[in-house]
């Protein structure tokens, strides 16, 4: 059966070039870069190259730090918990502001800290699904707010927040700013020299690097308390033996992602738009968020009368991988939080399916998907009790 992978916001294929670059570090060059001997020295050389690539990728200065972590979830945990240890426990400032559409690694960590006595404020999105500076102004209190954490781009909708303005405003009030840039790297320009964030999280497997390795950017002079205590790795900021192969892989993946930004902007966007137009040509469908405000690879679409999980199950029968924020597909049974935050009609919040492309997605795969998607929606609407109801009402009105 044909296989089409359109779930690249969940994870991506490792670029074969990245895999090749990683291979020598399992059997040939397996030294610990923190060792003094030649085995260590040999891997250290490659670590330096990888670090240069990471710094260049987000345009960090030499004085800044990029801490290697196991994933963006760890990076996010590190910063939120650091605020708790540093500010809340010291009775300094006890408030963290996050957005209503954050990833669980921010949202659930904040919920946990709330139980420990941290005050969590949640910024609503506007009708476009974006956090704007005016809203942040209303929430931020320089005497109480220790950290503002707002994602660069949303994983479900692809909507890009105005991080530059949000960070500039936050900094002007003397408050720390963190952004989860997991969905931004490789999809839009992420440049910390122009965007005054203090902390930024990213993860290799979202841009064709391996799973299990991520990064945490920390601006020069900004303090934080490590999450992992132990050895002297990462200058004592993140203990644990460094996974050289994965760091090398992430470094190359970052370089390739930066090189491919133009392709992403043009070609991935063209393919995405092709799919989006086809979705919108099906009656009673909608796409969340204005196209110009989204990353070039993402579509969160709703199909009236069709439950999201039923549709992704159906597409999976054709070998097409998509995902849904629909309650039915997850164990939590809660309606899609992004829909709730954006105030989208509750009736539609169970109908959403996310399509996320990558630089490896082909035109032919999109054409195949369009064909099967139309068939699937038609079949499920034929089964649907609510779609008949909708059409019936419409028919009634016309008559």
């Amino acid at each position, binding site marked *: 059966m044909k296989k089409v992978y359109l779930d690249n916001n969940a994870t991506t294929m490792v670029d074969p070039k990245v895999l090749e670059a990683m291979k020598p570090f399992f059997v040939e060059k397996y030294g610990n870069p923190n060792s003094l001997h030649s085995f260590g020295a040999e891997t250290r050389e490659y670590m330096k190259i990888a670090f240069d690539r990471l710094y260049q990728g987000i345009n960090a200065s030499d004085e800044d730090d990029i801490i290697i972590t196991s994933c963006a979830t760890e990076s996010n945990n590190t910063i939120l918990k650091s605020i708790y240890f540093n500010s809340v426990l010291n009775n300094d400032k006890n408030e963290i502001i996050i957005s209503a559409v954050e990833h669980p690694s921010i949202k659930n960590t904040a919920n946990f800290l709330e139980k420990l006595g941290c005050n969590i404020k949640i910024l609503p999105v506007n009708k476009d699904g974006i956090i704007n500076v005016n809203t942040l102004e209303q929430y931020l209190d320089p005497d109480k707010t220790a950290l503002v954490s707002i994602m660069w781009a949303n994983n479900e909708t692809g909507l890009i927040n105005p991080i530059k303005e949000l960070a500039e405003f936050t900094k002007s009030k003397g408050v720390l700013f963190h952004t989860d840039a997991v969905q931004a790297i490789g999809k839009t320009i992420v440049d910390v020299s122009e965007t005054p964030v203090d902390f930024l999280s990213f993860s290799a497997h979202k841009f064709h690097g391996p799973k299990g390795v991520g990064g945490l950017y920390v601006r020069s002079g900004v303090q934080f308390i490590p999450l992992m205590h132990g050895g002297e790795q990462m200058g004592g900021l993140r203990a644990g033996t460094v996974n050289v192969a994965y760091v090398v892989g992430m470094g190359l993946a970052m370089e390739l992602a930066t090189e491919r930004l133009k392709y992403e902007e043009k070609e991935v966007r063209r393919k995405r738009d092709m799919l989006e137009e086809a979705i919108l040509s099906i009656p009673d469908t909608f796409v969340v968020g204005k196209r110009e405000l989204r990353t070039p690879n993402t579509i969160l679409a709703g199909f009236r009368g069709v439950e999201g*999980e039923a549709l992704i199950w159906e597409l999976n029968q054709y070998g097409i991988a998509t995902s849904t924020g*629909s309650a039915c597909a997850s164990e*939590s049974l809660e309606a899609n939080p992004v829909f709730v935050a954006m105030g989208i009609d509750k009736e539609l919040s169970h109908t959403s399916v996310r399509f996320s492309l990558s630089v490896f997605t082909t035109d032919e795969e999109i054409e195949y998907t369009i064909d099967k998607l139309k068939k699937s929606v038609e079949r499920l609407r034929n089964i649907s009790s609510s779609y008949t109801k909708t059409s019936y009402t419409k028919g009634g009105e016309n008559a």
Partner: protein
Amino acid sequence: MPKNKLIGGALWELYSQKVNERMRNPNNMGELTEEDAKRLGGKLVIADYGAESCGDAVRLYWIVEPKTDKILAAKFKSFGCGTAIASSDVMAELCVGKTVDDAVKITNIDVEKALRDDPNTPAVPPQKMHCSVMAYDVIKQAAAIYKGIDMTEIGDQDIVCECAHVSLGTIKEVIKLNDLHTIEEITEYTKAGAFCKSCIRPGGHEKRKYYLEDILKEVREEMEQEKKASQSGAYSEFEKMTIVGKMKIIEKVLDKNVRPTLKKDDGDIVLTDLKTENDKTIIVLSYAGACIGCASAKTMTLGFIEEILKNELSSKIEVVIK
């Protein structure tokens, strides 16, 4: 924690083959019309249950023969995930040929069992159970419409969870049928408490008449009492037995629960007499073998024997050693 839970993401692999087949090709999907009713000589019933905003909605069509109340045909339409489609399909099938009163007896468990590939493996993972629970509610709705009565007259329709539209009756029944112990289990089975969470305990978004915590506590207590009642049935029988009957059953208990322990130390016991004083049964025993002269025979061993006889037969028993 089971390994699969640590690995995660196995939801679809837990669907039975039958669920998969019915998701792909539901046999009973469709509509029934007045013309169909006329053709078959029955009355058309259309019932809706659930809401799109809750993630699942089902519409059930019946054609019922008025003289016999027999369901001649059943079809469904469903907005929902694959398991909702599969369970609605089976639900419709189970209705056909039954009388309306018998159809109302179809439970969520019946629907789920009909979807199993083998009798001991659930057809769907626990969090998907609500789909079949809903099938049961729509049948009640259809029956109410057919009879021209309110659904409350068929089942208790006090709604506990407004979001998922789950009734008190459904919750109580699901707790009892599935021997549920936690709020999380109730949520998995019925979806109650999954959304705004107001109905779990006081202090949520809105004030509710019923809370899951209270219902669970109450039903568990009820179940405990029922269990006790069924046990006390056993002792009331003991009390009503003849002396010979009592002796026989005491011997049985001694053989099963007492003698094997005593025999490990080469001891034994003999039932020598049985008396009734007021409403008490006095059992007179005498030791044999190594038990004779054993230091603990009149203390610990006696206590042990008395406890067993009380547990097995009646609390109104006294054991005396001769």
